[in-house]
C-alpha cells in the first residue's frame, strides 16, 4: 500500500480484455468421461441461459445453473446448484446423478454488443424514429 510508480509487471499483465463466448445454445455435450462431465458442467455454470438436465432416474430439470462445487475427486463429491425454471426451491445435484445435459435456453446476452445497439439505433433513426433510447428487452 504505497504511493509509487507502478511496477512494469503490473502493467504488462493488464491488456487481457473481455472474453469470447462460445455459441453454446443448443449444444448437447457428451458426458462419457469424468473430464467431459467436468468440462460440460463448468460451461453450464458459465452459460448465460437455462439448461435442461436429465438425471439418471429419468427426471428432467430445466433451469439456470448458478453454482458448482467441487468438494472431492469423485463425481459424487461435486455438485451443480440450479435455480429451476418452474419451482421456487433451489436444487443441489451431484455430478454423479446427471445423465444428460442440453443448453436449451437462449443465451440471454448473445448478440447484445454495443455495436449491435448502434446498428439498431441507426436503423431506427433511418426509419424516422425519434427519441430513441436504450430500452430493456422483455423477459422470456
Amino acid at each position: 500500500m504505497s504511493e509509487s510508480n507502478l511496477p512494469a509487471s503490473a502493467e504488462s499483465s493488464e491488456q487481457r480484455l473481455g472474453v469470447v463466448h462460445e455459441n453454446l445454445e443448443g449444444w448437447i455435450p457428451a458426458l462419457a468421461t469424468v473430464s467431459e462431465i467436468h468440462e460440460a458442467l463448468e460451461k453450464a455454470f458459465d452459460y448465460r441461459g437455462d439448461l435442461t438436465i436429465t438425471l439418471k432416474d429419468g427426471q428432467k430439470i430445466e433451469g439456470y445453473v448458478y453454482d458448482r462445487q467441487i468438494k472431492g475427486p469423485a463425481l459424487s463429491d461435486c455438485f451443480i446448484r440450479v435455480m429451476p425454471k418452474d419451482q421456487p426451491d433451489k436444487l443441489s445435484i451431484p455430478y454423479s446423478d446427471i445423465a444428460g445435459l442440453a443448453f436449451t435456453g437462449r443465451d440471454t446476452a448473445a448478440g447484445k454488443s454495443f455495436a449491435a445497439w448502434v446498428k439498431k439505433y441507426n436503423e431506427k433513426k433511418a426509419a424516422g424514429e425519434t427519441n430513441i433510447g436504450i430500452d430493456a428487452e422483455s423477459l422470456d
Partner: protein
Amino acid sequence: MLSPGYTYDKAPDQEHFLSKKKTRELFRQILSNRHEKWRFNLSPLFMEMLMGKREYKCTPWGMPTYNIFGWQKPCYLLQDGYADTFQELLRETDWDRYGTESGNPKCANCMVHSGYEASAVDDMFGSIGGFLSTVRATLFNKYKDPDAMGGGSNGKRTDSGQLVQIAVSPKA
C-alpha cells in the same frame, strides 16, 4: 460517485472494457484540476489510486454481495459460485486466488471500489501514514495537473475525449 467498470465476463459487450492503464488515464483526466464545488463521494486515497498515484491490493471481502442465489464468491463482480451463509463465504473462499496480485486473469483489470476502496479505507484508518495522506488529500484536493488531458505541458489535449459516439449518418 465514480468507479471504473469491470471486465464482467457475462456482459453482452466484451469489446469496450478499459485496461488499468486506460482507466488510470481516464480518472486522471476526471479527477485532476477539480473545480472547488465538485464533491466526490469516494475516499480520497481510493481516488488517488484511480489516478495512478498509489497502489493497493484488493480486499474482495470488503463489500460482500448477497442476492437470490446466496453470498456471491468472491465479490460482487466476479461470480465464482455462492455460499449459503456469510460464515461459509469467509471460511470456504480461497481468497488468495483473487485480486490483481493473485495472477487471476479475471482480476487483471479490476480497479473497482468493491475491492479497492475497502483497501483504501483500511489504509486510511489502519496506519498513521494512511491517515496523514488522507488529511493531505482532503486539504489539497485540487490536483493541479496541466498534463492530465494528455496534451503535454501546454495543457492542450491531443486525443478525443469522447468515450461513446454514435455514428452520425452523412446528410443526403
